């Protein structure tokens, strides 16, 4: 029997070598290279002692002994889980609630709320954390100072340096992500399904809980996993807020292990292996939910028009809650940064301080030697990585959702694997890797591009998977029956229909690339600094006012970018509303 017949038993549709297999092979190869090579170096490092000038690295199990066989470890594990569950839960509840209110009810000013609630995405974690120190630290926090002055007490009302504070700051910072992802999920569900429940006599809340939430369940699992993993690999919040009061999680333990001299990369790597195990479990659970693909695909070729539910007087309450949320997440942190940036050194707002407003900090930022190149590098890196990520993951998601290739679930895990690398360790692994493989990328922008694409590939996967789950397969099949080859069908039917998810993912990757810090910190060299590195340098030098000034400008220009993108899309008549 010819080889074609053997392939048939695997139900491969086109058992021939053509453009389809080249594209698929390229995407799979890229994902495998990017995910597995750093993983290999991570594991290799975890069995080595620290290398010093006098002693070369040696094989050892000591790192694992230190990392797992101590009481300390149990505490770190407990803290990590508490922090991640708390932060992901807070972000998920807030995000889902607002996404539902925004997509499915007649709350007033919805489009304004939608636009405003995306702003926190733009604020880098380090700026958000610093702004909450300025607001709620026990000594200099505006909230505490104001209340202490008002009631003439020494009582500390809120303390951001605590587990509660960490969860609060990180959860709030992640909530817009949950909001975005859940909005996309709600948009791909046919409202007729909810309306039929309404006709069965269900109340609005019953429908939200028993229909909408259940229908978007695969998306819910996917979103919660993203939030959980982001929280557990969150670097800025636990390091800045947790370490000073001795609350250690995995990431800050890794950071400390790297920071000691000689830096104990082996110990850091064995901590990272624990994170890997947790994350693998999560992804395995998620891939089981994805088996429900067909069951939950509700966007078929028949057009449906999203309709909203009337919630009566409750809509005013919803609008009020939305406004309060925006005040806490957007307005307060931004205003405190603006205030700080206009001072010579930081003081709580007062009439006296109002007289000392100055633009010196801004002048200082523009005068900083690396400013211009940092802006350029950030732009190039974020656009390039977002484009590569969006297109590659679209192909990968298609393979996972549509083909019956054996081991395709492995591919999903492969492309999601980098999610488990804390940025710091990923940066380290890539650094070590390309020091050994001298292909000329070390010390250039290319190595940072590799790091960014690797790091953000999982987000592209999740964005595209969400829309791919909702895409009826007959839409592609009809293109095939029309005579289109795989490439044409993919380019002209699948990609345009994935556009909501694709564009949402693209914007998201641009923004997170702009504020990426923990990988860049180990990979930049003179000439390839990015904006977040500049902020980091200010933070280390304790230059709060310059940090605030740069932060304000960065947030403002990112906001302009988002607005420009929305305007451009309307201009070119791309039919997708919102995302």
């Amino acid at each position, binding site marked *: *029997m*010819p080889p*074609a*017949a053997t392939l*048939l038993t695997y*139900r*491969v*549709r*086109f*058992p*021939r070598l053509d453009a389809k297999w080249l594209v698929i092979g390229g995407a799979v190869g890229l994902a495998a290279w990017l995910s597995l090579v750093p993983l290999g170096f991570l594991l290799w490092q975890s069995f080595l002692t620290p290398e010093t000038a006098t002693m070369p690295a040696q094989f050892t199990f000591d790192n694992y002994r230190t990392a797992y066989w101590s009481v300390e470890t149990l505490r770190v594990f407990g803290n990590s889980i508490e922090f991640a569950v708390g932060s992901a839960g807070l972000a998920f509840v807030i995000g889902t609630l607002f996404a539902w209110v925004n997509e499915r009810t007649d709350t007033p000013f919805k489009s304004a709320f939608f636009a405003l609630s995306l702003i926190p995405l733009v604020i880098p974690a380090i700026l958000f954390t610093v702004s909450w120190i300025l607001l709620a630290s026990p000594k200099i926090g505006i909230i505490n100072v104001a209340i202490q002055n008002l009631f003439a007490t020494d009582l500390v009302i809120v303390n951001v340096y605590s587990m509660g504070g960490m969860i609060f700051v990180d959860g709030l910072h992640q909530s817009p992500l949950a909001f975005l992802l859940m909005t996309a999920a709600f948009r791909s569900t046919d409202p007729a399904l909810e309306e039929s429940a309404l006709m069965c006599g269900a109340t609005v809340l019953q429908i939200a809980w028993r229909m909408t939430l259940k229908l978007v369940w695969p998306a819910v699992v996917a979103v919660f996993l993203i939030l959980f993993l982001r929280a557990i690999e969150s670097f800025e919040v636990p390091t800045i807020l947790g370490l000073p009061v001795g609350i250690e999680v995995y990431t800050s333990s890794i950071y400390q292990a790297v920071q000691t001299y000689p830096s104990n990369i082996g110990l850091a790597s064995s901590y990272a292996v624990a994170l890997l195990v947790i994350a693998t479990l999560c992804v395995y659970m998620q891939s089981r939910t994805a088996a429900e693909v067909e069951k939950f695909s509700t966007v*078929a*070729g*028949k*057009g449906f028009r999203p309709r909203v539910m009337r919630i009566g007087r409750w809509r005013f309450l919803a609008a009020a809650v939305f406004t309060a949320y925006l005040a806490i997440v957007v307005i307060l942190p931004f205003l405190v940064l603006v205030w700080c940036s206009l001072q010579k050194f930081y003081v709580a707002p007062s009439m006296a301080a109002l007289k000392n407003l100055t633009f010196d900090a801004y002048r200082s930022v523009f005068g900083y030697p690396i400013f211009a190149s940092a802006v350029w590098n950030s732009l190039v890196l974020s656009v390039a990585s977002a484009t590569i990520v969006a297109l590659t993951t679209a192909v990968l998601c298609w393979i996972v959702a549509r083909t*019956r290739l054996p081991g395709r679930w492995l591919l999903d895990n492969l492309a999601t694997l980098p999610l488990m690398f804390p940025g710091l360790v990923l940066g380290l692994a890539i650094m070590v890797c390309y020091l050994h493989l001298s292909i000329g990328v070390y010390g250039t922008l290319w190595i940072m591009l590799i790091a960014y694409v690797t790091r953000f590939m999982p987000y592209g996967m999740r964005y595209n998977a969400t829309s791919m789950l909702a895409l*009826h397969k*007959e*839409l592609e*099949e*009809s*293109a*095939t*029956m*029309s*005579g*289109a*080859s*795989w490439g*044409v*069908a993919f380019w*002209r*039917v699948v990609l*345009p*229909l994935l*556009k909501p998810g694709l564009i949402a993912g693209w914007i998201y990757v641009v923004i997170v690339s702009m504020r990426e810090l923990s990988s860049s910190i180990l990979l930049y060299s003179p000439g390839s600094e990015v904006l977040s590195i500049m902020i980091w340098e200010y933070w280390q030098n304790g230059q709060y006012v310059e940090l605030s000034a740069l932060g304000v400008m960065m947030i403002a220009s990112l906001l302009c970018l988002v607005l420009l993108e929305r305007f451009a899309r309307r201009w070119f008549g791309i*039919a997708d509303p919102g995302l």
Partner: protein
Amino acid sequence: MLIVKLLCTEYPGDRGTAVRATHDVSFEVPDGKLFTLLGPSGCGKTTTLRSIAGLEVPKSGEISLHGKVVFSSATGISIPPNQRNFGMVFQSYAIWPHMSVYQNAAFPLEVSRRKPGRKDIAERVMRVLRAVALDDLAERPATKLSGGQQQRLALARALVMEPQLLLLDEPLSNLDAKLRERMRFELKRMQRELALTTVYVTHDQSEALALSHEIAVMSEGRIVQIGSPREVYERPCNRFVADFIGTTNFIDAHVIEETGDGRCRVGTPVGVFNVQCFDRLRRNQAVIVSVRPEDVELSEKQPEGAARDTVCVGVVDAKAFLGEHLDFHVKIGDLALLARAHPSLRTPVGDRIFVRMQGDKCIALPAASVAKP
């Protein structure tokens, strides 16, 4: 001529087992004819259609059109679906929501190997849109179409490439009843005018009867009976077909004697029937007699029956007025019969009524319905 030979398909079930979707499906469709695969959901009809389309790869079998093999497990041939030049209308219509009506219909021409010129494309697209009465809406976004318009667009998209074969997967099931009836005639008219060889999949027996030149009734992955609509309706080969196509009364019986000429006498709880039989039956074999409701004739006066007819006396148990006809439930002893009568018959519930069943219209079927052709 489309020839499908011994098609077997499988899909992966739980824990790596393979589940058979179709067994040894074979049929032929002459040029210009409309062939229907009819059966309840899960009977393998859509799988068969998708195998012809090339969207599924069968485990074994052979498919050829005009003598050209498009799939054969023996020689390892499997032509990709996009090179088969078969037009297909999907159940969901699969209208691309990001394109206009015109763009949807023009897509097959734009992606074809020998892409026609711009003017040629425009001319052919407008011709096919005119044929389905969508030429006025050419520039409209596809999402702004009603259900019936989407269905016609899906048909136009399948026709614009002038396919060798048209495949229709329950194309009318998403439409409301009135529209479905209109589209049924529309579809039939276009198919007959274009003389396009067509394979049609449906679970709706009235659609199948109205449209087809030939029907294959499928059950559990096998073809149970192939025949013209009239044959399948009037001479069902077993209980499943008789039950699935139309409505029918079943009466338990046993064979008394064969009278030759395809007839036999059977004993039933309400007396001896003269019936038709198409299988060879043994004396005393248990059979089922099938009588269509419209063949159960009712009258208030004693009817004059021919020698072969059966006449009984019953009582009206219930009745339902359905506009063009009236359904009577008649009880003859313990036996309940459904009869379809003209609305002019006004016998009240509880009254005595005469029932006549012509011997030609009663069919004896083997009691075990598992019999295969």
